[in-house]
């Protein structure tokens, strides 16, 4: 199999139609009034909000921007507003700084230097806000993660990973960029370096140690049952880099599943209870 950027090319009008149909169908089957999602001003949340608006109509999409003082970025807020205007969805800005402050103050073991634990709290607090809106307004929480992040486990468990539907979760980051340009997300948003925004100057590619253009091809190879040595040869990369990606992918499976339990009963949740989503 040839691992070139062409391998990741998709029929974007068809992908757009399928994602829109998927969102509309599930929201209607659930009897929900629409979706609520966190809009950071980054590519993934912007494209998801745009697709949801194109699918449901902007009046059924509520974007929540949840800045906090440590990572406040005026450009991101401006991009969120720009997108909301362009695609016609509602945007509310909720500053979560005071909530975070109270939360951290209440922690007996709070360690200001542990930026990962602290950063994950930010993602989980944002999730709590989103589910409040969802409950209150009878909406679904729409996740914004892409396939590259999900396969790498590059998200906060039960934080930004928590959602009712995740419309772009089967698209690699480089495919998300193609789709974003196709549906008219402004180029300045598409071109921004991705960041989870959990601490100042956090950049996804720096943290992952690899450019998305390469990462996506490695993941695409793994998805298609290629051995790391085949992928390394095809992409002219050190085998260690490919093996590290594979190891990280396998090690983070726990983030993509229901909690593990030991089997005791006749049929067990998450194991052999196999039920359809939303029957009847």
């Amino acid at each position, binding site marked *: 199999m040839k691992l070139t950027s062409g391998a990741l090319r998709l029929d974007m009008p068809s992908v757009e139609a399928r994602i829109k*149909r998927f969102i509309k169908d599930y929201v209607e089957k659930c009897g929900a009034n629409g979706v609520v999602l966190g809009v950071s001003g980054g590519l993934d949340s912007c494209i998801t909000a745009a697709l949801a608006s194109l699918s449901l109509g902007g009046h059924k999409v509520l974007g929540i921007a949840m800045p906090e003082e440590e990572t406040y970025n005026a450009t991101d807020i401006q991009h969120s507003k720009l997108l909301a205007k362009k695609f016609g969805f509602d945007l509310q800005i909720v500053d979560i700084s005071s909530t975070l402050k109270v939360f951290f103050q209440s922690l007996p073991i709070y360690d200001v230097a542990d930026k990962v634990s602290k950063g994950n709290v930010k993602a989980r607090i944002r999730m709590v806000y989103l589910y409040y809106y969802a409950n209150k307004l009878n909406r679904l929480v729409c996740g914004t993660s892409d396939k590259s992040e999900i396969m790498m486990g590059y998200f906060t468990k039960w934080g930004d990973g928590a959602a009712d539907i995740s419309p772009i979760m089967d698209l690699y980051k480089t495919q998300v960029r193609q789709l974003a340009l196709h549906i008219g997300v402004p180029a300045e948003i598409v071109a921004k370096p991705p960041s989870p925004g959990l601490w100042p100057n956090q950049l996804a590619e720096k943290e992952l140690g690899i450019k998305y253009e390469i990462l996506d091809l490695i993941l695409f190879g793994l998805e298609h049952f290629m051995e790391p040595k085949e992928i390394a040869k095809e992409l002219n990369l050190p085998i260690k880099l490919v093996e590290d990606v594979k190891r990280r992918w396998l090690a983070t499976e726990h983030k993509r599943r229901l909690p593990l339990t030991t089997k005791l009963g006749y049929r067990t949740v998450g194991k052999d209870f196999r039920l359809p*989503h939303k*029957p009847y």
Partner: protein
Amino acid sequence: MLEKFNVALAQISCKVGDKKHNINTMKKNIKQAKEKGANLIIFPELSLTGYLNRDLAYELAEPIPGPSIHSLEEIAKKENTYIVFGMPEQSEKAHNVLYNTAVLLGPNGLIGKYRKMHLPTHSVFEEKRYFRLGYEAPVFETKIGKLGLAICYDIFFPEIPRLLRLKGSQLIICISASPAVRSRFFEAFTATRALENTVFLAYVNLVGVENGLQFWGGSRIIAPDGSILAKAKYDEEDLVIGNIDYADLKRAEAFVPTLRDLRPELFDSLREQAEKL
């Protein structure tokens, strides 16, 4: 026997687990198809229940004949028509032994059934978890010719359509629940199976979204020369009528005589090699 007749491809979406709703959808389509002059109305695989029933299959399955068959028999009789649809069938002898079955009804009621012989259990498919393999590929002699039935993944294999054709089938009806990522396979196989057997082939696929899976529609009737006689929309519900004229079989059989040129002596070797794979 009618040499020329109309076939309706009833490309519907189903509500998972809701037989009442799905039977009502079928009734509406049958009525509309009859108004358009259809003699045979075909619905997708597992159209009685929806495709992705998972563990609900055990409670949804019914014996044949059973309550849902009776309900649809009444419509077939009332509308004086032939109907093909799909359902999870419960064995007569064991409650939780199920089959993925295609049913043929006619103006006098139940004519017969076909139990799917190739059950996909890979990728998003888990059919062997729920269904037992079928063992027979019958051909039914009716007033609209000799009909053979197949279900979805069966068409990936040349054996079932060939067997049906060798048993005299003039029209092979393949009901399906194929997700969108597989459309190119079905587009190729439907044409190939009709051509290589010089037979009419009617393919009816599901549409709609179940468990995030999107079914692509694209139902069609292929003539024995590979041409498309009728084609339904992609991704949307549709009801399309096509006309079948069995006289075309003769012409195709003479133009590309694949049946005449069959080499049965290869079949033993095929079996031997397949068993050793």
